[in-house]
């Protein structure tokens, strides 16, 4: 919107929405409100449109609504956005635990009353969050992840829309637990496993128990895979087959403890993995992109992590406004 004058959105309704967003923003000034007053004074239609838009805007501030949208109440990012991202693991766990203790009853009521209404959980970049579902299942969400949970009397369904989550499933034979991700359905019978969906690459790693991975209901074609502890399935979404093999569960679940493990990974792969966690993307220059790295990186802040990479590898970081470029040293 043009700060000096009226917004240009064609009609009173569009303009009214623009004014509501403008004046209720924390960047709004006295002048914005005076300009709004002048805009409103010109017509009754504008006043009516503004009143409706503002009333709706304020209705979304109701604490009750926020609880309905996110039943755990953990809508506040765990780390304040103002500081650089930092993954404070003990605090994450402690906060999640206290929220769960405080809100378990309320969340349970919402979930069951609303069943099978979907509940959505989202984490921001750099954020990790623990969620206890109404059935007791524990979900740890990794950075930049979005899941939708539906729990009904006949079954439990989680849709992983993006990102990564570790599931520690409470056994309940009457209500099968399944995770839908990409074009696959991961069915579980009471176990611990990790599902990630990044850039159309689906990865399922099983820590304990048994899961079955097959096509979404109604999609047929790809075979169904049965995975046990230590198995990993990888798949390009839409591909004819998936690839399975043995994997280090400790490596795959390292993120749940606040670090990442790399074995003979290229710097390009390392940067890609780290970029899921940090606001400013890392980009290795072409001449260093295929350098190999093995090691453990604690996810304790972008600057610290970049500093360590500079120590481990013959690179130096050049910080720009939009990205950090790793140049040869």
């Amino acid at each position, binding site marked *: *919107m043009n700060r000096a004058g009226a917004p240009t*959105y064609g009609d009173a*309704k*569009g303009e009214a*929405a*623009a004014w*509501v*967003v*403008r*004046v*209720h*923003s*924390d*960047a*709004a*000034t*006295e002048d*914005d*409100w*005076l300009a709004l*007053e002048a805009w*409103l*004074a010109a017509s009754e239609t504008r*006043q009516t449109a503004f*009143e*409706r*838009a*503002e*009333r*709706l*805007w*304020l*209705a*979304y*501030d*109701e604490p*009750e*609504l*926020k609880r*309905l*949208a*996110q039943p755990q109440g953990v*809508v*506040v*990012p765990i780390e304040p*956005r*103002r500081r650089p991202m930092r993954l404070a693991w003990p605090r994450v766990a402690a906060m999640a635990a206290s929220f769960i203790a405080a809100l378990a009853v309320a969340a349970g009521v919402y979930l069951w009353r*609303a069943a099978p*209404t*979907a509940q959505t959980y*989202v984490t*921001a*970049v750099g954020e990790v969050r623990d969620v206890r579902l109404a059935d007791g299942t524990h979900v740890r969400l990794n950075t930049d992840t979005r899941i939708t949970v539906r729990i009904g009397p006949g079954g439990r369904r989680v849709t992983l829309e993006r990102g990564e989550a570790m599931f520690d499933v409470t056994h309940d034979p009457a209500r099968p637990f399944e995770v839908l991700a990409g074009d696959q359905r991961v069915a579980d019978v009471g176990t611990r496993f990790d599902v990630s969906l990044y850039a159309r690459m689906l990865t399922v790693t099983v820590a304990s128990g048994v899961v079955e991975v097959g096509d979404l209901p109604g999609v047929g074609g790809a075979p169904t895979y049965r995975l046990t502890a230590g198995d990993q399935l990888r798949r390009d979404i839409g591909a004819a087959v998936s690839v399975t093999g043995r994997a280090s569960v400790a490596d795959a679940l390292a993120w749940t403890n606040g670090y990442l493990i790399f074995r003979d990974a290229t710097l390009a792969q390392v940067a890609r993995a780290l970029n899921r966690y940090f*606001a400013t993307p890392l980009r290795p220059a072409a001449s260093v992109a295929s350098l190999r790295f093995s090691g453990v990186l604690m996810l304790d802040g972008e600057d610290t992590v970049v500093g360590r990479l500079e120590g481990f590898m013959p690179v130096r970081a050049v910080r720009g406004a939009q990205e950090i470029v790793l140049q040869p040293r």
Partner: protein
Amino acid sequence: MDDSSAKPLLAAYLRKRADLVRYFALRLKSAALAEDVVQDIYVRIASADTGQVANPSAYLYRLGANLMLDRLKQRRRAEARDEAWQEGFLVRMGGEAVAEDPPADAAFAARQRLRRLVSALDDLPPQRRRAFELHKLQGLSHAETAAEMGISRSAVEKHIIAALQQLVALIGPEEDGA
């Protein structure tokens, strides 16, 4: 003693009082109701320790907008009570009118209304929804939302405006609040 220098909000209030009354008179079409709202603003800032506020004058307008809505809600509830009276849903107990409106129904209706607001978010395109949720439900500023989504501030504002516009179209005037 003048404590306005120690309280920037109070100082802004004293300076802006006439402007606030004029604005809320325009909104409420009543100078008397506007005076009430502006008085509510005073009570609120005098009694509460609001801490640091980036832009005190704009904050007073926003506070007033919320208080105005509270007053409208109260009035609507009072009207509903009057209606209930006429329809015989009130009983007298010890000379006092007691609403017999089934509380379960009222609570149910309120929850339904909130559910409707939440479910309407499902109809927004993904980016638009994300910007709206990060800003409104998670309380990030426009700038923080922009950083979160990796898009510009003005793109965030466009998404949020479009979201609000769409929500207004999706949700009927009777459903949206108060």
